[in-house]
């Protein structure tokens, strides 16, 4: 009886549709990963990860590229974390919701979060490389990435701080604690999982960046000896191998695989931090 019911058929169609769409999303991701594995896994070895690039990347490894990427990332995070944290604290703790300045800062962040990375690249080149005279360097690239990662980092950290129950703020105030004591002893520790997640999201955004780096940290594939040297990031290496280097496809695939694995690892750390630590706290309260 139930099978002939038109409502049953409609529900069945709906179920097929949502399952089908979800399967195609997962499928395209698996295809992507499979494609990379198929073409790139053969190149992967300890030697590939550590050796210097040779013959414009057609042979050799990506050791210098990995080091450059991590250096750029480190510069970006060292600069972005204190700036972002301070702004998030200002927005969530120091100003009332209707404050004009806070609204302006919030609007700027939301616009910046949507600005294409190539625009950040041009800004970075004009400001850091040319105006400040940093040239094509890891420092310039890292600073540009810091600007790019800041909006998402600030917004996530701000949301994390806002999620800390007001009970604790009032409790701290009622005990005569100063604002800085409340922040350092209660609010920031309570928001740590969200802050960690914000940091990971920022890192994720910075790691995958190509356009903003071509103009700022450049594409010299040698091992950098200082932050003032130009350095090639993983994403730039992939772009160069696949667009400019004939016969570099296999290594481009392998590099992409390394980048994707790194991103998946970082994203999972972010998820784990956000869910595990946060839920433990919620379960306790």
């Amino acid at each position: 009886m139930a099978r002939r019911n038109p409502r049953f058929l409609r529900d069945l169609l709906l179920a097929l549709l949502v399952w089908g769409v979800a399967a195609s999303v997962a499928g395209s991701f698996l295809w992507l990963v499979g494609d990379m594995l198929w073409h790139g896994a053969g190149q992967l070895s300890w030697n590939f990860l550590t050796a210097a690039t040779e013959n414009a990347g057609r042979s050799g490894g990506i050791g210098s590229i990995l080091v450059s990427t991590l250096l750029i990332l480190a510069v970006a995070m060292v600069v972005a974390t204190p700036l972002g944290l301070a702004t998030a604290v200002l927005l969530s703790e120091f100003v009332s919701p209707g404050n004009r300045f806070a609204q302006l800062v919030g609007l700027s962040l939301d616009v910046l979060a949507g600005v294409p990375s190539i625009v950040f690249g041009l800004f970075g080149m004009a400001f850091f490389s040319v105006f400040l005279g940093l040239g094509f360097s890891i420092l310039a690239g890292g600073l540009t990435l810091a600007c790019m990662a800041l909006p998402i980092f600030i917004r996530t950290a701000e949301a994390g701080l806002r999620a800390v129950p007001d009970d604790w703020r009032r409790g701290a105030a009622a005990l005569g604690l100063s604002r800085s004591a409340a922040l350092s002893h209660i609010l920031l520790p309570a928001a740590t999982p969200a802050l960690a997640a914000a940091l990971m999201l920022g890192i994720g955004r910075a790691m995958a960046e190509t356009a903003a780096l071509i103009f700022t940290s450049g594409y010299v594939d040698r091992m950098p000896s200082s932050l003032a040297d130009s350095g090639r990031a993983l994403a730039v290496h992939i772009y160069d191998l696949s667009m400019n280097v004939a016969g570099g496809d296999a290594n481009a695939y392998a590099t992409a695989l390394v980048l994707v694995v790194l991103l998946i690892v970082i994203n999972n750390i972010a998820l784990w931090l956000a869910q595990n630590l946060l839920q433990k706290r919620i379960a306790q309260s």
Partner: protein
Amino acid sequence: MTKTPEPCCTPQNGSEAYTVGPLQSGPACCEPEPVIRVTNLSLRYAGQPALENVALDIYRGCITALIGPSGCGKTSFLSSLNRLTDLIPGCTVEGGIEIDGRDVHDPDTDVQALRRQVGMIFQKPNPFPLSIRRNIQMPLREHGVRACTALEEKTEAALRDVGLWDEVRDRLDAPALVLSGGQQQRLCIARALALQPEILLMDEPCSALDPLSSGVVEDLIQDLRGRYTVVIVTHNLAQARRIANYAGFFWAKERTGTLVEFGQCRQIFEEPAHELTAAYVSGMRG
């Protein structure tokens, strides 16, 4: 309203001295000496009046209960006493509040010192997400107590005062959030007592607790009489009647609360002067 009434309880041990400190150290009696004087207090949220024209004296060492229906400004009144209203955007307070002769809303008032003198307990227990020990010691450290022995002594004394010591002495480093609701509330009271306040403001401290825990906390509040000046907001009329020396009845007219009647607890409950009070305490309204 400002006329000084008769003492509300009989002095014990032949002394009327008011004491701050452990229960054993002195007699427990309240004195009809105003420690908080409120005159012509009005409070607005973004221009909308929430309290108007409140005037009352709160007597040293006594328990004063504030009763009345929800939304009549009792909590707002309580928060204005330790300037917690400062935290609420758009909240303005007018009129006079004097504690020990000092104007609370004077711009020169040291708010942190004021809040140390006037502790507050909230409806929902709010221990910090720290260990039991750190919950008590962190505020002490921030108020300048640095010596380890002093910190440990004060922690034990405060926990003993609220009857929590024997329950938690073996797990002081456990997270405070694993305690039961009643234990959490007692920890919050201990945290406030450790700072040696003179006045304790309590905003429905029992309403989020089960009846057993509520009874324990109520007994604790009784023990505070004479050692601290307690102002308690409660919706539990029987509780107000059991513990309070003085009672104030708030009522809201067109969303603006005001103090209808204030007097000795017995008088408010047995011979209310105002018909609204009579209707409320007899359960006919509110």
